[in-house]
């Protein structure tokens, strides 16, 4: 496969990775009101851990256990969850703006550790990641096959999260978002719920990282810049915080905008850097969403108790 179809498959797989990230952030921000600016950090943890687990032995980086792909996914999720727990226990009670700074600091620590610990991660040179189940399909159809895997992961995750947010647990976290005092008055352990949400959401980021690594087959610290975090935030805020379908649409739309701007380079005068224009548009989008449409494209459906 090549040309337009190949590009479409590439684009869709990339968008699915971001949709997974957006669902993770939606659980944290959309449903619980928990601010996490460290998305890129957990994303990186997942990508690297899965790469360590599944790659063949090598003296140049950590791991190389040659384990199967699902093990990579599970370890990536577990590791991100553990990192979230370590980070969360001391900081979960902070107010949202302080939490933002702490989490962004966490993501930068992860990124700098990856850059400096060259003997573990090959540092800025980046490390290769295997293509799972490569032998099952002919090479020309492999990218389509992997898109299928990614979509299956996304659908499973979507169903699981829809069930979670409509369960009593989901009602509890939404109460926390609306009014912590009310949740406290109902005897809910607010901090514990928030910690659970931080861990679950971050595990989803880890999962997205693993899916991303095996899709891109090559990861460097530059894939996990703070920019990625803000991109996911735009997707969630524009798509509609608190609506899982909305954030998936947001992910597709923002990713489409991001890739679509590449075609601008034919129109724009020579010498204008497309990367800078992209960044500017994402910045403007963030400003506009907050100022014009804070609830996003789809928004959240108002729900009330059956008794009312």
């Amino acid at each position, binding site marked *: 496969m090549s040309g337009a179809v190949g590009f479409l498959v590439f684009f869709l797989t990339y968008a699915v990775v971001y949709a997974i990230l957006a669902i993770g952030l939606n659980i944290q921000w959309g449903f619980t009101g928990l*601010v996490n600016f460290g998305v890129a950090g957990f994303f990186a943890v997942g990508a690297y851990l899965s790469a360590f687990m599944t790659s063949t032995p090598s003296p140049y980086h950590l791991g190389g256990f040659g384990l199967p792909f699902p093990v990579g996914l599970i370890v990536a999720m577990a590791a991100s969850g553990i990192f979230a727990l370590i980070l969360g226990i001391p900081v979960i009670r902070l107010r*949202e*703006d*302080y939490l*933002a*700074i702490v989490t*962004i*600091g966490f993501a*930068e620590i992860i990124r700098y550790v990856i850059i400096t610990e060259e003997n573990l991660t090959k540092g800025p040179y980046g490390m290769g990641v295997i293509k799972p189940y490569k032998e099952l399909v002919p090479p020309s159809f492999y990218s389509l096959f992997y898109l299928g895997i990614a979509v299956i992961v996304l659908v499973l995750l979507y169903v699981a999260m829809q069930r979670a947010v409509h369960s009593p647990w989901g009602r509890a976290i939404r109460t926390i978002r609306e009014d912590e005092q009310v949740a406290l008055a109902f005897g809910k352990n607010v901090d514990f719920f928030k910690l659970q949400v931080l861990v679950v959401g971050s595990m989803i980021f880890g999962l997205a990282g693993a899916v991303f690594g095996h899709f891109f087959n090559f990861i460097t610290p530059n894939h996990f810049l*703070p*920019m990625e975090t*803000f991109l996911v*935030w735009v997707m969630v*805020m524009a798509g509609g915080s608190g609506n899982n379908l909305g954030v998936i649409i947001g992910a597709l739309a923002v990713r489409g905008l991001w890739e679509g701007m590449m075609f601008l380079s034919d129109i724009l005068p020579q010498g*204008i*850097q497309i*990367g*800078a*224009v*992209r*960044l*500017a548009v*994402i*910045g*403007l*989008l*963030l*400003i506009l*969403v*907050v*100022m014009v449409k*804070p609830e996003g494209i789809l928004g959240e459906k108002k729900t009330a108790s059956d008794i009312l």
Partner: protein
Amino acid sequence: MQLIVNGILMGAIISIGAVGLTLVSRILHFFYFGYAAMLVYGAYLTLTFFNFLGLPLVLSVLISIPLLALLAILIDKITFKNLRVRGTGPFGMMVVGIGLELFLRSSIRLLWGSDVMRYDLPIRRALVLPFDIRITPNQIIIISASVVLMFLLHIFLDQTKIGKAMRATADNIVLAKVRGIDTERVIMWTWVIASISAAFAGFFLALDTRLVPIMGWKLLLPLFAAVILGGVGNPYGALAGGMIIGITGSLSWIYYTYI
């Protein structure tokens, strides 16, 4: 010893920047990520006046300050003023601030390009002081100018009426309104102080290293650390916090070289 001197130098740059950021954080009541872009704008405006128009260096810095302040106040009028009227919380403002940071940073790349640039100054040898400390004349200028700036800032905040109003607003915004302080005017002056602070910090950072569009973002986290360590809204705390962060950051190299 060399590390301590380097730390003081970095601390001076962080302190100067943190003073503006702490006042903005407190008076506008949110953490302004776009401050990083203000810093870089200050450095690049100075570069334009100095390298391309051939003005003296000190004059270039002094001209870029009012321009930067105008830009900051204009942005405030377009975005944050509306949000204040609407009663948007600190988080919404912070997201807008991040959007501004991304937008302004890329506008720097579009206006000046992403290449590494430097001020057209002759390269001078580092002076060797006792204890084998090496320090360049530029670094001496940075440290001494920071001290003078901090002193001027202290006089401004302590003696002038608007400085007092600013400290009052930073202390308790509701009480300040009750006492008849025009908070919108205070906010305007906050942007002016923030611009002075950002322009000098950006200029010093560029003088000591090089100009790249990303340099503000790299300094932003140390700046926030200094602001929070010193207590949000306390300029003197920001000075102390900046020094502590700068020196600790520099001394951590000792640990790094021994492992």
